[in-house]
C-alpha cells in the first residue's frame, strides 16, 4: 500500500522515542531513509541523501506542488551543486509530484 512503509517507520521511531523518553533514557536519533514506493523513488532517495536526510520530503509536502518541487530541484542543482542530470531531475520531479505534492492554504 502506498505510504505504508513510511508510516510504519515513523510510528516505530515515535513509539521508540516516546518509550525511551518516559522509561529508559534518551533514544538515539536515527536517520530516516524511507520514502513512498513509486517510480523514481530509488533515484530520488539516492540523490537527495547525499547531502540531507529525507524527513524534509514528507514534512514539506503540505507546502509543495509541482511548480514548487521544480523550483526546489533547480535550487539543489544550481545553488547547492547537486549532481543531478536534466533527465534525472525530470524523473525526480515526477516522483515527488506524484507522491509529495499536497499544497494547502
Amino acid at each position, binding site marked *: 500500500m502506498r505510504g505504508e512503509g513510511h508510516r510504519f517507520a515513523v*510510528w516505530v521511531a515515535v513509539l521508540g522515542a516516546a518509550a525511551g523518553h518516559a522509561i529508559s533514557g534518551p533514544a538515539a*536519533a536515527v536517520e530516516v531513509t524511507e520514502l513512498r514506493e513509486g517510480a523514481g523513488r530509488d533515484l530520488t532517495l539516492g540523490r537527495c541523501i547525499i*547531502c540531507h536526510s529525507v524527513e*524534509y520530503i514528507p514534512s514539506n*509536502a503540505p*507546502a509543495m506542488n509541482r511548480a514548487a518541487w521544480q523550483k526546489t530541484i533547480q535550487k539543489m542543482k544550481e545553488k547547492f551543486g547537486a549532481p543531478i542530470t536534466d533527465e534525472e531531475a525530470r524523473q525526480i520531479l515526477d516522483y515527488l509530484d506524484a507522491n509529495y505534492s499536497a499544497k494547502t492554504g
Partner: protein
Amino acid sequence: MLTRREALLAGAGWLATRAGANEGVAGAVGGAEILGALPGKKPLIQRAFRPPNFETPLADLQPSYTGNAVFFVRYHLPNIPYVDAAAWRLEVGGPSAQHPLVLSLRELKGNFEHVSINAVNQCSGNRRGLFAPRVPGVQWGNGAMGHALWAGVRLRDVLHKAGVAADALEVVFNGADTPLLPGTPDFVKSLPIDRALDENTLIAYEMNGAPLPHWNGAPARLVVPGWTGTYWVKHLTDIRIQPAAFDGFWMKSAYRIPTGAFATARFASQETTENTPVTEMVVNSLITSPAPATRLRRGAPARLAGKAWDAGAGIASVEVSLDGRQSWRPAKLGRDLGRFAWREFELPLDTSRSGPIEVAVRARSRNGSIQPEKLTPNPSGYHDNIVQTARVEVS
C-alpha cells in the same frame, strides 16, 4: 491514565490547535513528529537528522532558562566536526583589519574582559510549519528558540584589537561546519559594522554556566542579542572585517524578507529594492502552560503562563483575553532579566464554570509595537508573531 498513543496525540495537539486558529488550515506539520536524541542531548523533535535540525519540545520551554541538553539545534551543512578546543584557533583579519590576529581559546578567555548576557536565540524560521499558506523549508513548530545566559567576550573588543579601519562596512563570520559537495556554498554570514561593534554582541564560549555544547557551537559562537539565530554563527573559525558587502549565498539569496515589509533594523549594505536580510526579531509571545489539549478540572486552581520577547526594547506588557478577544487584561510579568531576555508572564484562570476558555495573548514592546492579528506574507515564512491563541477546556 492516557495510553501511549493518546499521550502522543495530545502532544501533537498543540500544533493542530494553533493551525486551527490560524485561518483554518488543518495538519500544521506534515507527518508524525519523531523524537530523537543527539549525543549529549535529550530527545528533541527531529525535523531533520542530517544536517541536524532538532526542535525543543514545549515542556522544555517552561523554565526561565532553556537547558543546554534541550536547546534547539539548527544546521545547514552536513559536515560538522567535533572541534578540539585546545587546537582551535580564531583568525581575525580581512582587508579592513589593521592588525590581523590569531587567538587560541585560552587567549580569547584571558586577553579580553569576560562578560555575560541573558538573551533569546530564535531561528528566523521558528513557526514556519504554522504558516498559512504553507511555505517550504524546515517545518518548525514553536521550539526553534530558547533563552540562555551567554558568556564570553565582546566581539568589539576583539575587533578593536585587530584594528578596525575607517572603511569597514561589514564583518564576515565563518564556522567549522562545511558542505559535502564542492558546489554547495559554505555557511558564512555577515553583520553590518555597527551591529558587530555593538557592546551586546559577543563571542561566547559558555551557555548557562557551562561550556557551549557541541551542537550549539563549541568551542565559541557568535551571540547577537535581538537578531535572529542565523547570525549566531557556531564553531567560529574566522572573522573578516571588510569594506564591501559580503556576497555569499547565505546573505544574498537566503534569509531574506521583502524590503519594507517589517519594521526591523535595516541592513543597508545588503538591501535591494526587492528584498533585504532578515535582521531583528519581532515582538512575540509563547503560551507554555496549560499544555495543549490539557483539560482543567472544574474548581481546581489553574494559571496561564508563558514568555514574551522582542529585539531588545524590552516587553512593556502582555495582554490576555479569555473571551475570544472581546476584552483584554494585563498579565502579571515576571522578573526583568534584561532587555534581550524573554519576560515571563502569568494570569490565574477561572475554573469555576465548565466549558471552553478561548485564550488569546499579545505582547507589547516598549518600542510600541504589538503582536498583530495577521501574518505578514513572505516567501520563507519568517516572523510569525501573530496573537497567540489556545482553547482550554474546563470540565
